């Protein structure tokens, strides 16, 4: 008896629901990433190399031949390298204390050290100015010296504080994963503690150390918030781009400097990415054995060190908080709320205006909340949308990449990882150049900002998503399919519930980034659309330092409240594993 052959076999296989589902989503993600990530960068490159439609290196010649401008390149490299070395050493020692000694209060130290992640980078600069600036409480009030921290020193100190948790996260993971029994074996063979450290501990963590260093370099060279506030005349690449564009309307020069900034930034990112993979590949997966009680001297030395670092970080927050509540820093320390009566005007999103008009009586309070606080409400709205959209999109992208592996998967992966290599300022400028067209309807609305922030932070979402999905046994999904579940049901009923923890922490991450990011959206705000983090800079530039502090305080409080809500409702702390690494 001859078996019955199905008639249209290739057709039915290819057009299965699963393939359509995967194909459509892959295509959608690719279009989004190409249009909102690749295209703006290409536009920048094109502008930097073209004059009147012809290829030219004139912009680059102009840049490199004018010493005053070229200095910004040198300056950027200098502060980034110095920050890189100091941060890596400090973070390594801190991570060593947390993972290899029996110092008390590890959880507390770790938590405090991650605090800088919840604030805009600018907070470091604001605090340093309050402490060591022209009117710094230490420089002016205590020491009465004319020295102040503006310039390279300020940038470096600020960047160290900001990069610390990011470097720490990598080093902490590395050191807690490397088998401590190696250390014990070396010591049992008669090696001294110091020798063990240099011959065993340090080499075994070398990839982690190098990748933390590369990440720090990348974060520093791409940062805009700290140098713009504390840099003074000391110009770096990121501030120079903004300078050329805002100050001189020279988009071509801005684009040129952007390309120049892209080179070290992409290099550092690539090194970090490559080494992180390598370092994680060495993780043995064995349970961490019991740590020998440390000798008292070692224990107290590391405790004192950890207390010092945490005090510095806390000092930043306390200073800015205080700075926003005292009358005239550093002369009159009586408390006031007047700095929270922001001078900035208007630019509300209609939804919010309508909302406040409904809930509040007309009067000065309503004016303050609805108009003066408008940037804060806009930021909050943007951040909530970014959190949901960003976390969902990256989870779906991660699912496609990790589990479906369609055609074009590698391109999708490459584009998903790329954003972390592109400095926010560069991407922002790219958006202006690419999308500032009358026919591009979402330009000038909050949607372009939302897209920008989602794209700029796509990398971490996708990486944490794929890391999580790798842990889901392939058989679990196959079990669902064999029981009759389609692709959508499998995703919503099985994959998503199993990714909930990762999803929530990615949500938190996107929210924090949207509330605190400055460089990426700097070019996208306007007289109609203002954001809280950007207002900090404008207030500071206007000389309203105290209000800048107050705005920063508000941002930190909103992020803090969000974290608290996430923690209370889901029981998981959003901060763990939320640095820009992974």
């Amino acid at each position: 008896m001859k078996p019955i052959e199905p008639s249209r076999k290739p057709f039915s296989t290819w057009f299965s629901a699963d393939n359509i589902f995967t194909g459509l989503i892959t295509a959608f993600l690719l279009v989004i990433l190409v249009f909102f990530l690749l295209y703006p960068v290409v536009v920048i490159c094109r502008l930097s190399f073209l004059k009147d439609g012809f290829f030219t290196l004139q912009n680059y010649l102009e840049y490199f031949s004018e010493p005053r401008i070229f200095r910004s390149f040198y300056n950027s490299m200098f502060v980034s390298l110095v920050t890189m070395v100091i941060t890596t050493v400090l973070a390594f020692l801190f991570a060593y204390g947390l993972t290899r000694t029996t110092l008390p209060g590890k959880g507390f130290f770790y938590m405090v050290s991650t605090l800088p992640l919840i604030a805009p980078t600018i907070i470091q600069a604001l605090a340093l100015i309050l402490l060591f600036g022209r009117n710094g409480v230490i420089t002016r009030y205590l020491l009465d010296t004319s020295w102040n921290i503006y310039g390279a020193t300020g940038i470096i100190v600020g960047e160290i504080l900001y990069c610390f948790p990011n470097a720490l996260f990598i080093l902490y993971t590395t050191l807690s994963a490397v088998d401590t029994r190696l250390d014990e074996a070396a010591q049992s063979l008669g090696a001294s503690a110091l020798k063990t450290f240099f011959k065993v501990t340090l080499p075994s963590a070398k990839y982690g150390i190098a990748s933390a260093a590369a990440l720090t370099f990348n974060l520093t060279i791409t940062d805009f918030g700290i140098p713009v506030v504390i840099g003074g005349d000391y110009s770096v690449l990121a501030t120079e781009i903004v300078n050329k564009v805002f100050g001189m309307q020279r988009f071509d020069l801005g684009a040129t400097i952007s390309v120049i900034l892209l080179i070290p930034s992409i290099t550092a990112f690539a090194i970090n990415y490559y080494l992180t993979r390598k370092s994680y590949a060495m993780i043995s997966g064995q349970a961490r054995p019991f740590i020998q009680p440390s000798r008292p001297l070692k224990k107290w030395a590391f405790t004192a060190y950890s207390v010092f670092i945490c005090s510095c970080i806390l000092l930043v927050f306390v200073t800015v908080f205080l700075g926003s509540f005292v009358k005239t820093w550093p002369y009159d320390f009586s408390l006031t709320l007047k700095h929270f009566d922001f001078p900035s005007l208007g630019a509300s999103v209609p939804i919010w205006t309508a909302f406040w008009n409904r809930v509040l009586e007309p009067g000065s309070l309503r004016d303050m909340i609805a108009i003066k606080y408008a940037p804060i409400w806009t930021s909050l709205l943007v951040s909530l949308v970014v959190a949901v959209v960003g976390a969902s999109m990256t989870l779906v992208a991660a699912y496609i990449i990790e589990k479906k592996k369609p055609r074009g998967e590698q391109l999708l992966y490459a584009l998903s990882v790329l954003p972390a290599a592109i400095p926010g300022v560069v991407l922002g400028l790219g958006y202006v150049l690419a999308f500032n067209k009358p026919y591009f309807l979402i330009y000038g609305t909050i949607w372009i900002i939302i897209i920008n922030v989602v794209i700029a932070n796509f990398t971490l979402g996708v990486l944490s998503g794929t890391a999580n999905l790798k842990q889901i046994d392939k058989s679990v999904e196959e079990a669902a399919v064999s029981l009759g579940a389609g692709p959508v049901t499998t995703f919503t009923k099985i994959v998503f519930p199993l990714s909930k923890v990762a999803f929530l922490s990615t949500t938190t991450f996107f929210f924090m980034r949207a509330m605190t990011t400055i460089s990426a959206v700097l070019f996208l705000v306007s007289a109609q659309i203002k954001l809280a983090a950007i207002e900090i800079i404008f207030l500071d530039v206007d000389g309203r330092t105290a209000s800048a502090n107050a705005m920063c305080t508000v941002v930190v409080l909103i992020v803090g409240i969000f974290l608290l809500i996430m923690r209370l409702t889901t029981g998981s702390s959003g901060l763990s594993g939320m640095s820009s690494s992974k």
Partner: protein
Amino acid sequence: MGRDLKLENLTKRYGRLTAVDHVNLEIHEGEFICFLGPSGCGKTTVLRMITGFETVTEGKIIFDGRVINDLLPKKREFGIVFQSYALFPNMTVEENIAFGLKMRKMPKKVIAERVDVMLDLIGLSGWRKLYPAQLSGGQQQRVALVRALAPDPQVLLLDEPLSALDAKIRLRLRAEIKRLQQELKKTMIHVTHDQEEALSIADRVVVMEGGQFRQVGRPIEIYKNPSCRFVADFVGTSNFFEGRRTDDIVDLGKRKIKIAQNGSGINEAVSLSIRPEHVEVFKKGEPSAVDEPLNLVPGRIEVVVFQGAAVRLLIEIDGDEIIADINEKEFEQRSLKRGNEIFLYFPPEAFLVFAEGEGKT
């Protein structure tokens, strides 16, 4: 004729590696088939092609008279049980079992009844509200088993379902699978690398090596009548001798042995195998009236291993080690001990003879 499953020249290639090589098999409805073979021989690949999770390179899978090569996995309605259980960790036992029924859009009441029946089947009714992580490995696998059975699949496929379990639980669950199969009369394909497991539960065993089916047959046939040296070696325990045969005499180099079968050629290379339980042991000085004095070989007991009812002796002859099993009573009566000089007797008719090129003569 029921809903049979037929593999025709089924082949799977991964690049240059041929994981499954032109295999043919007809599985009847209600039959319990076991794929047996060492790790990497292609068992999982055959199973995954049948389930539809792996594409077919060449050949056909025919079910109920239809070629199903390109049918989507969910349309095949085959149940699968995985080595790793693969229960949905976010659902309770009950929800896990109901999942396949919900996917088939059955009415709530029918689902509830069916879940009850399934839970009774494995005696886990008290556990319905628990999550998989709260169950032991054996319990999880039992839930996985009924989860796959709940939608009444056409065929149930089990890929090494017992490998991750402790030895004791493995035996219990093995018996339970067999019982379920007999109760439900479901076609089942069970994959394992454990020959004892395969022989004890299957109606028919398929012995695989290097992507090919070496032998298909009832367990007793496979054991008594292995088709090639590989099967004789892999299934059960065998003693092997290499030598050259002329007529019914095999020259092992150090000695000659008589066998029951006449060869065709002269001086042809063969391997002989004999099961340990067919080797007879005589103490020196004991009367040993045997049919074939040529096959009486002196040796010494090197190791004695008690295996419950049987005793396994490792005996050295001519520098080689031979395994002989004798029953415990006999062992006691003869008061055999380590170090005893003894005679071994190999009955000529107990030898299986394989030509060097694998096949049996």
